[in-house]
């Protein structure tokens, strides 16, 4: 029997007409070819049958059209999801029938770059790479996003924001300045200096208590608090060239930054504790631009040009035998070449005192020119997908660096327990500091076969682990990336149920903004 086409339904037609009136007929899509492209990609929801295609994809242009769309969603009580480039398909794909995807494809303006006062005002389609390129031209920098460079810069700031240079330039929550934002109830909220002057987004806080708090969290509001249509974001001083230097063609491109301003070190320790102690000392000395303790898999994920090359090199153990417990440090001469010379002397003192050893020169030469500078340019997280087409993580805790060590160790145990389907990954312990080491994160990332039964099995295991963690009062940092169902479970334990449900109810009375994210107020 032929499946009933929802498009013949009266209610569908009514809503369609309302959207068409609001944004123009060409900007509303309900044909199967389009809607089927909007439900999940690299993460398991589609694979596991957890998400359904949306009923509409609507493309508003600007804040007022977005407001009109969200008001229609409220009138008809249909759920909507704002999306940027939709990489985070777990919360960017519908799990309710009748969902409306609000795609930002018509909102790609960079409204302003204030070079002197170091900020840019952007719309949601502007990608991290695009903004980075514009910033370079002005001697400025956005931080290296560890998501894909093609992700929406606004979504990247709202959603996670663990920058590759977070050690020096902080976490994304602080890089957000003024915001223009359509709340789930259709009201336009402007925060920071935008609240009093819609043309001037240079400052993020206030007035008074800071409503930016609603948008962020470990994994942000997940589209559960409406749609940001304009955001002012910080730019930072940058001593590098105005265009990114490259030689060769993709995938064999090589980048070299000026030697009088940048210098990489990769220093190896006998233990993870040794590596972290080194990171603490660097932070205390207030030197360096990038400080990362990458897990072995990161070296090869970022280096290999293909799945085949990945596994060939893995078999040779080039990285496993050389970079275990190594810390990558890039010194930056912000002030002058002399700063770089000073920092080299300080770093070399620290290396000597802490018993660090540079990794083998041939491995350094293999890795650094092709890969290291990506951590300054764009990081390009999608390279994590090379070995298996997907990746997962089971711990992502942020607190002190010391805390990170303890928790990646627990992460190892879980990885061991869940292998297979977790693939060989040599203790996936990614640790990075923020704000000169005032705090830091530990994350355990690993490749996993992109097969429904493997991922299904692993997801169930991860969920059971997360439940166990929550029961033990432990925030494992991964749970929040699941959105609503996790908050439902964790909120009573960490004592934020009343507050989060209260806020959600207040600004989303019809529960239309990406249900069940970020919490179901009625559950």
């Amino acid at each position, binding site marked *: 029997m032929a499946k009933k086409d929802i498009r013949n339904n009266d209610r569908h037609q009514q809503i369609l007409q309302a959207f068409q009136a609001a944004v123009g007929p060409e900007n509303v899509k309900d044909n199967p070819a389009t809607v089927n492209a909007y439900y999940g990609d690299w993460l398991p929801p589609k694979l596991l049958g957890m998400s359904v295609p949306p009923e509409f994809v609507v493309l508003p242009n600007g804040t007022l059209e977005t407001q009109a769309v969200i008001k229609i969603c409220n009138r008809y009580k249909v759920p909507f999801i704002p999306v940027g480039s939709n990489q985070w398909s777990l919360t960017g794909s519908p799990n309710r029938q009748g969902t409306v995807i609000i795609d930002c494809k018509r909102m790609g303006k960079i409204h302003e770059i204030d070079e002197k006062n170091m900020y840019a005002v952007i719309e949601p389609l502007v990608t991290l790479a695009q903004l980075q390129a514009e910033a370079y031209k002005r001697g400025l920098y956005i931080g290296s996003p560890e998501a894909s460079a093609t992700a929406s810069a606004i979504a990247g700031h709202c959603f996670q924001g663990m920058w590759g240079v977070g050690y020096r330039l902080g976490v994304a929550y602080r890089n957000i300045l003024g915001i223009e934002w359509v709340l789930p109830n259709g009201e336009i909220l402007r925060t920071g200096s935008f609240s009093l*002057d819609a043309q001037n987004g240079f400052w993020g806080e*206030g007035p008074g*208590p800071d409503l930016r708090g609603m948008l962020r969290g470990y994994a942000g509001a997940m589209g559960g608090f409406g749609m940001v249509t304009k955001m002012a974001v910080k730019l930072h*001083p940058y001593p590098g060239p105005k265009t990114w230097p490259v030689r060769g063609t993709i995938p064999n491109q090589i980048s070299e930054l000026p030697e009088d301003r940048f210098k990489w070190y990769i220093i190896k320790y006998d233990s993870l504790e040794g590596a972290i102690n080194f990171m603490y000392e660097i932070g*205390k000395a207030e030197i360096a631009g990038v400080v990362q303790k990458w897990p072995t898999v990161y070296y090869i994920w970022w280096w290999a040009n293909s799945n085949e090359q990945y596994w060939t090199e893995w078999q040779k153990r080039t990285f496993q035998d050389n970079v275990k417990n190594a810390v990558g440090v890039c010194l930056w001469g912000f002030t002058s070449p002399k700063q770089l010379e000073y920092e080299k002397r*300080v770093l070399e003192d620290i290396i000597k005192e802490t018993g660090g050893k540079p990794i083998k020169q041939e491995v350094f030469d293999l890795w650094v020119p092709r890969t290291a500078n990506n951590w300054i340019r764009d990081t390009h997280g999608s390279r994590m997908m090379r070995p298996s087409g997907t990746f997962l993580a089971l711990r992502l805790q942020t607190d002190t660096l010391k805390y990170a060590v303890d928790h990646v160790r627990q992460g190892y145990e879980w990885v061991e327990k869940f292998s297979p389907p977790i693939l060989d990954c040599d203790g996936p312990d990614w640790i990075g500091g923020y704000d000169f*080491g*005032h705090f830091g994160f530990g994350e355990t990332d690993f490749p996993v076969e992109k097969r429904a039964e493997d991922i299904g099995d692993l997801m169930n295991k991860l969920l059971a682990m997360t439940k166990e963690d929550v029961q033990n009062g432990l925030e494992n940092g991964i749970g929040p990336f699941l959105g609503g169902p996790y908050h439902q479970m964790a909120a009573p334990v960490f004592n934020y149920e009343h507050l989060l449900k209260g806020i959600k109810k207040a600004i989303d009375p019809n529960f239309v903004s990406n249900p069940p994210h970020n919490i179901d107020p009625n559950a």
Partner: protein
Amino acid sequence: MIKELRDIVGAKNVLDNEEALALYAQDRSLSAPKKPFAVAKVNSAEQIQELIAFANKTFTPLIPSSSTIHFYGATLPEHGGVVVDLSGMNKILEIDPLNRKVKIEPGVTWHQLQQALKEHDQMPLNPLFPHPGTSAMTSSLEREPMLIPKYEYGDPVLTMQVHLGNGQLFRTGTASDKHTYGAYPEGPGIDFWRFFLGAQGTMGIVSWLNIKTEYRPKYQKAYFVACDELEDAADPIYKLQRRHIGNECFVLNRFLLAQLLCKEYPKDFTKLMDDLPPYTIILVIAGAPRRPLERIAYEEEALMEIATDMKFEAAKTVGGVAGLGTAILDMLHDLPADGPYWKTRYKNSTQDIFFITTMDRAQGYVEIAQGYAAAYGLTLNELGVYMQPLERGRACHLCFSLPCDLDSEQDRQRIATLHTELSQTLFEQGAFFSRPYGTWADMVYRHATTYTATLKELKKIFDPNNILNPGKLCF
């Protein structure tokens, strides 16, 4: 009611005699006195919890107060009620030199904190020479600007324990997970901590706060740049901050710097007013824990190079003041435990107007302020100007100080009118009053309509009976 209060905090900790209440009914601002019904001096988190339960039962306003001095009317009870005096909770609960943070109670002052951190070679990120009675916690929560703009961050707040008006005891960030060190502001849920900053005690009563500390330099040099106008200071600071040069960096005009430096009033003050330039950039170049002198050397060299390029002089003093560098460094590193407040040497109070803007717009605001000040009979030599670059110079805190004799009704009235009118004009010209105290609240929230409406919705969740400092902000 008094009996219930006594049961909660102990008889000796409840003040209800006229004399005591009169002290809490006014502050150093020009706000009209507002008497509380009683004052409860608390000394534990449990007592705060009980007071909140009592207040919800009896619909009694609670006005949290941690400092022993107040300048902006924020602790005056608009609708009566009980002042919750937290100044006695003044323990430093934990110093964590490894992660460079400290956990403080509400009554800890900047001086106390600075002294305690010294032995760990650490220092707090304090604002401009705070009054000895200022609570380090309130000052951080209220986003008073740090003197050091070299970090990407503009406030030192990490995590806190807060008692909500709805009776809930809440911890923000990772402090809500007992396994952690409470070092990271983002924790389970959303960024709740943001709602307690700049809140004037209306969203919750904070009983401890974790804030960042930094290395206390052993070697440093102070440099001074004389400027005729504030705009002459902006470009050098943009450049210095962009190149990551210096620790403390700020601008004071002659009137404020003379008050800061004068030891004997009026003798020194008059001389300083004659000698000092109209504006002075104060820049401290500091050594790091390792190879401190080498760091000073390259920063100094870059400073001199910029000075030559931009044609300004970075000198060891301005106006021929002897020992200026040492004096400033001593003051920075030994905040006074008591004694007179430097900003009140000229008259017994200062009525400040402050807001956030960018440095390239600061001169325009100075001209507006000077025009208004003149119209109200303040000479150029009586208007204080302080510009604090924030976050590597991307913005600045600009503050105008209007001296006022609180004992003279005529002066009070004159300065009150000047304060209101000047604030209004600055606001209309785009000055961003991010911390809207007193009458600024109306001015600001009337314009920020959805922001205001949303804040009110949040307030209903955090403090449904509006018992916490009612009448402040938009509540």
